[in-house]
Every structure is written in structure tokens, then in C-alpha cells.
């Protein structure tokens, strides 16, 4: 349950007014809309209403952006919002694309080298085969293989590549035809079954268009080129065809320098289960791994969100939503970029104040573009309220200025926008610092937290109290002196305001270490845990150990202590909640409901809910009275016929007799009248029957039932509720 009840969700049109009076007109707003219990629904309906009114009043602007702030937004401001979106997003997109292009650079290089070196010297009579472990995100496979193709074919010029997909794997002939066409670039129709291809001049007989000797002819013209056959989705490829293909390639290996690349999305084991041993021993080669999702995701996130050049940041709740979906469902960088883009679009589309983002450097333009209505809107932000309340305690006159003077407000906006940017830059820096600490403190820990998951916790300001943070700090305390030295040195290299402090302590540790040349330094925190547990004897032992420490050790303990204290206070300072900031609504996009509605729509539960509890959607008097009691809504004669029939359907077994259904339907709709003798010619009865058939066909259309073949006049139940 989210509570997006902050006013800025209201598409900007009303937020500058403290409240508004809603006067229902007969046709402007659909009476069917009714506030349901869940607040996300409330929002949804509200948004609809506003959109409807907006659309009616505002004349459609260029770019398709609506005029916000109750239609009082100037045309320039609308244009500015649109241009801001264009400018900011194109920048982010360019940078993320650059990152994505480099993500697989290493793999591409390795594959290209493999193709170049593959040959009889290295692999003998075996078919050189590269297994490319692509991961289960099938949407990315195509682009990966295209990258491989262009790398081998155009950049490194090692030969030609034919990419095969499972769609081609209907039979061996088609596979070979496609491969031959891709490699020799001979265009010939696929239509003819066994079309012949005019071979190179000088040969008397033509060849079949699936004859691999065509490639051999081509190879005689290109002596150094490798012929790469890349199978993009090995799992989906017909195993029998794959086996045939490998046999054929292996047969021709002596004449044609074939290299096979197989894309494996699931696991190698499943691949080896699929091919027979006799085929497996024909292959030899290498395996290549593309970057893990976590790593590439983090790289893209660092560039697209954390980078100081990205002005608009994600808020914690949206970030949680996005990354939960990534973890649970998609695991794909592509969808993350789509969702980020949607966040940008939604922010600039619906928030009139988003123009402030464009004024990051330009004060003059801001004073011009920010109208009085904009200022009113700013004053209605919750963060403005916080600001005024906090200034009220220290500078009461300034608070009143903020409330009355637009010029003062504008200058406050300017400084606030700088403050917001400074905050997020500091945050990014601190996050990268923390990631560094984590990687040194526990290098092999399986559950280290990537930056994109840290982000939302950090924004909420609660990260420093989390066990993950405490753990990292405590483990850092207990590190051996060599590792601690390494940690401090690495931190000193990172650009941050603490780097000089770290450099100093690193130098100190170094001198201490060289003074005490015999063994490594021991700090008081490294004493084994077990000595502290038992009270009396433990104390004694502890004292003994402590007395065994040299002066350098004591000095070192102090340095460890002070370094960690600096670090901790640094993090506490940086990891403050973002809601403290004035104008955080503008710089952090944090609306859950548009994202959850767009990216994780729930069509099936919605339909089922609409049919089983129509009152949730209709909100009419007649059947809505039970809805307040929770689950109490049962079958009522006043509900729509389809909904009635659906509820009867839910109660029936897997095979439903149509007549039984009809009689139940009749009883429910007619109520007491149903007990009377039914009259065939009764008009009411006929109308009801028509309604029954109509509802039944609607259920059929929705895929809930189909007619049974086993039994006449029976229906088969196809869908159960709640799945």
C-alpha cells in the first residue's frame, strides 16, 4: 500500500491551491468512478478526473504536453518543460549507451581473438567451438550477437559470421541455406526447394543452394577468412538439427575453416545433456562469459543515476519498485533504462515545477520563466513548509519574506537547487566510498549490496543504522594491519574530502610498520572474541594480551580508531534523508503509482476483481452497500449480469451444466418471483434468457469457459480465481 497523497501527484493543476471544491457536473466526470478503499485507486481515479478536466480546458499544445497549473502555465514554460526533458534524457541516454557498449567489450575481444586463433594447430581435428554464456535475459541476446558479428566481421576482419536462430532450425537444409547466404552474400530465393546456385565461373556444374561447397568456393577467394557459424539460442534450436549441423561442419572442417559459436542462456549442463557423446567429442574450444547482470546494472546505474550530470534522481520508493521488479521478474538492464526514461517523462509531463531542473546554471532564465503561479505552487510543496518552519525559529523575518516575496523565494529556489545537487553528488561519492570499503573488507562475501540497492536505503537516511553498515564498520576494525593499510590507501586515492586524512594515516601506518619490522601491527580490536566472553579469566587474559602490545601497536590502535570514527561521521553526515531538503520533490522523482500501473499492470486480478466485486468499480448505491464490510459482498440480483454469472461460475465444479447455471442465474436475478411457474412466453423471462446468453458469451470471450466436447450442454471451466 503506498501513500502518494502528497499534493504534487496531482499533475500540478491543483497543487498551488490549498484545497479545491469539486462540483460534479453531469457529463464531465463519469459517475461510475468511485473512491475505492485502496489509496492507489483513489489516486488513479483522481488523476483521471484531472486529466479529463485538463483535456477539456487546455487547448492541445505542441509536443503533446498539457498546460498545467489550471491552465495558467505559459506557453514558454510548457515548451521549457518539453525541451528540458529532451535535453536531460538525451544526455542520460547517450551516456548509458556508451556504458552499455563497453559492458561486453572484454567478452567481444576474447571471442574475436578466439575466432582469429582457432585452427588446426590449436584444436586439431576438433571443431573449434566457443560457448558464449549469455544469461537468461533473452532480450539482450540479439544485440550481443550483432555486436559479435560486427566485431569479427567489420572491426577485426577475421572472417564472416552467420547468425542462426531457432526460427531457422526447421531443417538442416534451411539452416545451411541461411548460413551460406549470410557468408557468401549470394541472394537467392528461399522459395524453390532445391534451387541451384551458379557457382564460381569455371565450374561446369551448378550446386544445390545448401551445398557447403559454395562456402568452400568462397573460401578459396578469401584465403585467410574464418567462417563463423553463430547459434544465438542453442536451447531453442532443434537438437536433431543442431547435431546434424555440427556433423556437417565437422566433416567440412578440413576444407573450410569453420568456427562454431553457441549461445547458452541457461547452463552448460543442460547443453551437454542435450547433445550426444559422439557429437560432444567433436567439439573443442573455449567458453566465454558475458558480464553478470549485477555488475552491468551497477555500471549503468552509476552512470545514469548517480553521476553528477544526471540532474533528476530517483526517489527511494520508485527505486525500490524498479529494483524489486528487476530482481523478481526481469533482470535486464534494458528494462531499467525504459523505466528510468518513463520516470523522466512522467516527471516533466505532469510536474509544472520540473522546469526548475533546467535552471541549474542559469539564474536569469529562471526569474523570467517562473511565474507567480509557479511561486504559489512552490509554496504548496511540503518541503517549503518544512523550510519555513525551520527558518521561523532562527530568522522569523526571512520566513515571512519567503511567504510574501516572490523574488526572495526565487533566490531560495536557486540556492536550494544547488543544495540538492550538492547533496546528491556527495551521496554518490559516499556510496562509491562505501562500496570500496565493502569490497576490501569482505572481498568474497556473497551478499554484498550493489550500489543500486544501497541507494534507496541511503536516501531514506536509515542506512547507518542497518546491520550491513555496522557489519562493514566492525569488520574493518578487525582487519589485519596489511589489509587495513590497503583499505586506507585505496580510500585515499578516491576523490573525496577525506582523501588527505586517509593519506596521512596511511603514511603513519607505513612508518609504524617499518619501525616494528618483526611482525605485523596488532590493534586492540583484533584480540580474539573468545577472550572477552568469559568474565573473570577472560579479563586476565585480555590484560595479558594488551600488555603484550608494543608502543607501535598502541599507536596503530589509535589510528584505526580515529580513521573509523572519521569514516562513520562522514557517512552519517552524507547519508541524511533526502526529505530534509527544500525542493526535493523536484529533484527526486518518487511516485510509485504511475510506475506500478504502467510496468506491472495486473490485468487478470483486475478482471477477476471487477467481476467478483463489481461494486469496487461501479460504486453505485444498489450493490455498494456491502462493500464497506470488507469481503461481505456476495451475489446480489442488482449486480451486472456478467458479474453474477461469473460468481455462479466460481462456485461450480470443473464441468458445468448450462441448464444448472441458468436455473441458478434465474433464481438470483428474479429473487422471489423465481418460485412462480416459469412461463415460456413471458417477455421478462425471454429478456433474461437473452441476458444470460450474452453474459455467457462474454465469459467465453474472456477465456473463462469453453464448450465441452465430452458432454453436451456442458461447459468446461478453464480459469480459477486468484492465479
Amino acid at each position, binding site marked *: 500500500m503506498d501513500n502518494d497523497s502528497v499534493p504534487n501527484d496531482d499533475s500540478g493543476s491543483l497543487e498551488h491551491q490549498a484545497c479545491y471544491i469539486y462540483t460534479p457536473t453531469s457529463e464531465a466526470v463519469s459517475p461510475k468512478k468511485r473512491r475505492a478503499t485502496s489509496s492507489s485507486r483513489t489516486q488513479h481515479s483522481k488523476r483521471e478526473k484531472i486529466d479529463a478536466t485538463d483535456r477539456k480546458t487546455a487547448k492541445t499544445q505542441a509536443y503533446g504536453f498539457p498546460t498545467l497549473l489550471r491552465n495558467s502555465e505559459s506557453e514558454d514554460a510548457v515548451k521549457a518543460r518539453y525541451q528540458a526533458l529532451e535535453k536531460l534524457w538525451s544526455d542520460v541516454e547517450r551516456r548509458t549507451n556508451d556504458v552499455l557498449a563497453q559492458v561486453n567489450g572484454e567478452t567481444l575481444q576474447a571471442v574475436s581473438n578466439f575466432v582469429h586463433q582457432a585452427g588446426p594447430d590449436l584444436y586439431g581435428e576438433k571443431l573449434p567451438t566457443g560457448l558464449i554464456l549469455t544469461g537468461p535475459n533473452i532480450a539482450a541476446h540479439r544485440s550481443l550477437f550483432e555486436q559479435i558479428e560486427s566485431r569479427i566481421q567489420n572491426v577485426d576482419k577475421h572472417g564472416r559470421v552467420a547468425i542462426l536462430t531457432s526460427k531457422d532450425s526447421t531443417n538442416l*537444409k534451411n539452416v545451411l541455406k541461411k548460413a551460406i547466404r549470410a557468408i557468401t552474400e549470394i541472394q537467392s530465393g528461399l522459395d524453390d526447394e532445391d534451387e541451384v546456385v551458379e557457382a564460381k565461373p569455371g565450374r561446369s556444374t551448378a550446386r544445390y543452394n545448401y551445398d*557447403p561447397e559454395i562456402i568452400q568456393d568462397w573460401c578459396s577467394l578469401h584465403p585467410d577468412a574464418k567462417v563463423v557459424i553463430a547459434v544465438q539460442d542453442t536451447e531453442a534450436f532443434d537438437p536433431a538439427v543442431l547435431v546434424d549441423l555440427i556433423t556437417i561442419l565437422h566433416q567440412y572442417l578440413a576444407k573450410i575453416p569453420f568456427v562454431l559459436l553457441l549461445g547458452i542462456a*541457461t*547452463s552448460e549442463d543442460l547443453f551437454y545433456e542435450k547433445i550426444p557423446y559422439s557429437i560432444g567429442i567433436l567439439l573443442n574450444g573455449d567458453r566465454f562469459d558475458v558480464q553478470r547482470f549485477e555488475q552491468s546494472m551497477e555500471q549503468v546505474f552509476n552512470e545514469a543515476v548517480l553521476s553528477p550530470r544526471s540532474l533528476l534522481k530517483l526517489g527511494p520508493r520508485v527505486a525500490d519498485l524498479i529494483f524489486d521488479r528487476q530482481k523478481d521478474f526481469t533482470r535486464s538492464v534494458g528494462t531499467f533504462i525504459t523505466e528510468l526514461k518513463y520516470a523522466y517523462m512522467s516527471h516533466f509531463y505532469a510536474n509544472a515545477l520540473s522546469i526548475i531542473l533546467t535552471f541549474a546554471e542559469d539564474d536569469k532564465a529562471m526569474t523570467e520563466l517562473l511565474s507567480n503561479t509557479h511561486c504559489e505552487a512552490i509554496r504548496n510543496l511540503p518541503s517549503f513548509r518544512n523550510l519555513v518552519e525551520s527558518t521561523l525559529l532562527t530568522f522569523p523575518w526571512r520566513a515571512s519574506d519567503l511567504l510574501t516575496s516572490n523574488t526572495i523565494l526565487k533566490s531560495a529556489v536557486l540556492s536550494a537547487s544547488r543544495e540538492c545537487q550538492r547533496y546528491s553528488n556527495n551521496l554518490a561519492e559516499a556510496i562509491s566510498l562505501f562500496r570500496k570499503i565493502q569490497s576490501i573488507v569482505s572481498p568474497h562475501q556473497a551478499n554484498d549490496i550493489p550500489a543500486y540497492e544501497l541507494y534507496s536505503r541511503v536516501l531514506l537516511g536509515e542506512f547507518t543504522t542497518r546491520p550491513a553498515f555496522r557489519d562493514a564498520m566492525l569488520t574493518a576494525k578487525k582487519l589485519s594491519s596489511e589489509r587495513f593499510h590497503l583499505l586506507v590507501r585505496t580510500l585515499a586515492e578516491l576523490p573525496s574530502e577525506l582523501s588527505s586524512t586517509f593519506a596521512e594515516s596511511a603514511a603513519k601506518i607505513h612508518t609504524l610498520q617499518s619501525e616494528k619490522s618483526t611482525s605485523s601491527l596488532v590493534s586492540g580490536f583484533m584480540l580474539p572474541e573468545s577472550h572477552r566472553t568469559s568474565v573473570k579469566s577472560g579479563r586476565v587474559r585480555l590484560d595479558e594480551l594488551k600488555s603484550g602490545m608494543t608502543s607501535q601497536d598502541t599507536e596503530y590502535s589509535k589510528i584505526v580508531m580515529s580513521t573509523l570514527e572519521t569514516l562513520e561521521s562522514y557517512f552519517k553526515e552524507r547519508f541524511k534523508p533526502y526529505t530534509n531538503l527544500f525542493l526535493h520533490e523536484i529533484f527526486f522523482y518518487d511516485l510509485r503509482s504511475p510506475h506500478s500501473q504502467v510496468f506491472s499492470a*495486473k490485468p487478470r486480478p483486475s478482471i477477476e476483481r471487477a467481476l467478483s466485486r463489481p461494486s469496487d468499480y461501479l460504486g453505485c448505491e444498489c450493490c455498494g452497500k456491502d462493500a464497506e464490510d470488507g469481503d461481505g459482498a456476495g451475489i446480489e440480483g442488482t449486480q451486472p449480469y456478467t458479474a453474477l454469472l461469473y460468481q455462479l461460475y466460481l462456485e461450480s465444479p470443473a464441468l458445468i451444466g448450462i441448464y444448472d447455471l441458468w436455473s441458478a442465474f434465474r433464481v438470483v436475478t428474479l429473487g422471489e418471483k423465481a418460485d412462480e411457474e416459469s412461463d415460456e412466453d413471458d417477455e421478462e423471462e425471454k429478456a433474461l434468457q437473452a441476458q444470460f446468453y450474452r453474459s455467457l458469451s462474454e465469459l467465453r470471450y474472456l477465456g473463462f469457459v469453453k464448450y465441452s466436447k465430452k458432454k453436451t450442454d456442458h461447459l468446461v471451466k478453464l480459469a480459477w480465481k486468484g*492465479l
Partner: protein
Amino acid sequence: MHSLESLYTQYPCREQQIKELALVLTQAKISSPPALILYGTEATGKTTIAKAVLDEFNVPHAYIRCKECVTSRHLFEKALAGCGTLAVSRTENQGQSASIFEATAKQPQLRPDSVNTLTGQLQKLLAHVGKVVLVLDGVDRQREITPAILSGLCQMGRIISNLTVVMIVSVHGARLMNIADPPSIHFPAYNKDQCVKILSLKPMSIFNLEEEDDYSTEMQEEDNWLWGQSCSAVWDIMGRHAARNIISLRDVMRQLWPLLIQPINDKEYGIRDFPKLLNRFKSDRLRNNEEFYMYPRIGSGLSQESAGNPSDQHDLPFFSKYLLCAAFLASYNSAKYDPRYFSKLSEAAGKRKRIAKRKQTGRQLNRKHLGPRPFPLERMLAIFQAILPTSLLPPLDLGSQIATLSSLRLIRKVSNVSSATDTSSKWRVNIGYEYAKFIGRSVKFDIDNHLEQ
């Protein structure tokens, strides 16, 4: 018989076959048989011996590798082309006019698309060229060859009197060629001694020499001795698998050789310390994972033993894993027991124990061994909801998850319904127990708790 002797030394352990083959194919005085069948399992020297004998005695022949041919028409065409070049060269040798071949060469468009046309064309082509041999290697391994075509090819030799069709096949059944009793030569599999003897013809060297000339006779002796010893040792260790054939033994030896002789190169052991060497090798290198060498995996050298480690692999999304578990359970449990395994009521759990006890007395196969059975999509979704730790309103992504799993062939659609997510479509899981268990464990779900035993 001088040439026969040289063949014997070149190809040991095959004297019998070489003699028979030479007898049948090289006698000019008697007419050669219409068909000859060489049979034996993989890597028993059929092709090598056939080629060697034909070349050694200059028998005019055309050699076709049938595995290279994509279709049967491709095979016919190759056979015709092979015989064509053969005929041309023969006539040139004999100094006859090539008029006949010019005539056939003028109609290249006529492509043989059945055994009949092939026979007809060959008949014309080979009318005046004397005895020729057509070798069809691995003809039973070609995908499109049916028994009818096979016997047709065999009969060609009867129709064309001067043609002998030599077929190299792996299994020879009496009725394979559908002719009474074609002469055949069996190539039995090599035994241990034969394997070692053949491999010893080309031993790998212990010494890493830069120039060939430094290689002395002594060194050669050392090489031969150690190679022979280790070949027979490896055969004994891995015989069960390596006995498949001589080629896999050779591959394994090539792989193991550098590891085996490493202590010699490190000057730890002398060459004659073979028992020590072998013990060292067994304890250090093999460590009971002989299968690693027997079932070679691409790119998994010794250096990366963790290569196959499943935890290192790309991860599926969280709910995909649960979907996969649900699909596995739906395939391997029978629907009537679903309430017992998935109902959240405690009563059902108690019942389950009672019934399970009674079941054990009956003689029944474990479900796991019976293979996956199809299930309707709706049932999988129901099981999915039942095994999820939290309740979930299924969003749109779930459908795309199912689509992804099916395009990864982890689950497969078996019924032919137009829409993939149609609730009445039938599906089947495509993964084994081990993988399902691994997937389940990664989301802390124990599949055994819900699996029918």
C-alpha cells in the same frame, strides 16, 4: 606381394582385412563382385584400410564421404560427379576419344534425383572404362538414406557390370542391403594390446626438442617405452570409457601426456620410474574424476576446476525459479494428489503421512523415473501460488516469464493451441530432478517436500 607387406607394417592388426580387400578388388582376371560391404564399429580402420588398399594397388575408384552430403540428391550428384572425373581420367589414360563424355558433359542440367536416374547416367558414363570402384563411406549415416535407396545403390553393381560398389557401414545386418549375400569384410574393434600397438606407432615425445636432428635413437626408445607403458596404464584406469574406441584413447592420452611427464621434466623422477610416476599422477591429477577427461567439456581445462560450478552461473529472476519449480512439480506429481501436497490446511498434511505409509507396500516405480507428464497451465499457476512464500497478485510480467522459460526450453508447450498463454494449453517441464533441486535450493525452497515419492 611386396606392397601388401608394406601395408601390413603401416597398418598393424588388420592383415586379414587388407588381404581380403586386396584379393577382391585387385584381381584383373576374375570379375569383381557387384557390391562389397566393409562393416565394423567406429574407429576400426575401415576407411583408412579401404583407401590405403585402393591407392596402393592403383584401383580406379571414386570416393564419396556420405556424411558430407546434406540430402540424398546431394549424394547422388556427388557420386555422379566423382565417377565423371574418374571416367575422364581413365579414358585419357587409355587414349580413347572422349566423345562419350563430351556427350554427357553437354547435358549437365540433368541432375540425378533418384537411384534410377543415377544408375542410368552411370551406365552411360562408365560403359567403356573397365573396372571401377565406387566407395560410399558411411552411407548408413547419411540422414536421408532409406533402406530402399541403400539396396538400390547396392544393386547398381549388378546393372553396371564393371562397377563395384564398396559400402562402408557401421552395422551389417543380413537384410540391410536386401540382396542375398553380399560379400562383406568385418572390422572388429581393437582390443587393448592392439590399441597400444597402434598408438605406439606415433608416440609423443618426452623431450622438448628445438631441432629434429637432436633426436637420438636412445631418446626414441625412451619415448616409445614410456608411451607404451602409459597407454596401457591409461587403458586400464579408464578402460571402461576409453574402450569406446582407439580415437578416444588417443585423445585422452594427448590430454594427459603433458601432465604425466611433468615430474620428468621437473627432474623429480627418471623416465624408468614409471610406477612412481603413475602413482603421483593418479593421486595428484585424477583424484577420481576420470570422467572429466572422458567427457571432455569445452573450455574447462584443469586450471579452472570451478568452471562447472553452478553457483557461478547466470541467475534466473526470483519468480522464474518458483515458476520452474511449480512446473517441475506439476509434471512429476499426479493431479489427484495436489490437495495433499499443496493444501495449506494441516489436516491434509496428516492425511498425507497416512496414505504415504500405505503406499510404500505397493510395488511402484518412482515418479521421478517415469519422465515428465503434460499439465495444463492453470495447474502450474495454482501450484506456483501455493508454493510461494508470500501471496502475489500476478502482474503482467508473469506471462512474459512463462514465455521466456519456454523459449529457453525449460518448459515446453505440448498441445497445439494457438495462444501460448491460453489457459487450456498443455505444457511439460524440460529439466531434470537435479537442476530443479538446484533451482529450488537457490530460493530456499525444498522441492522434495512437495514431490510425490
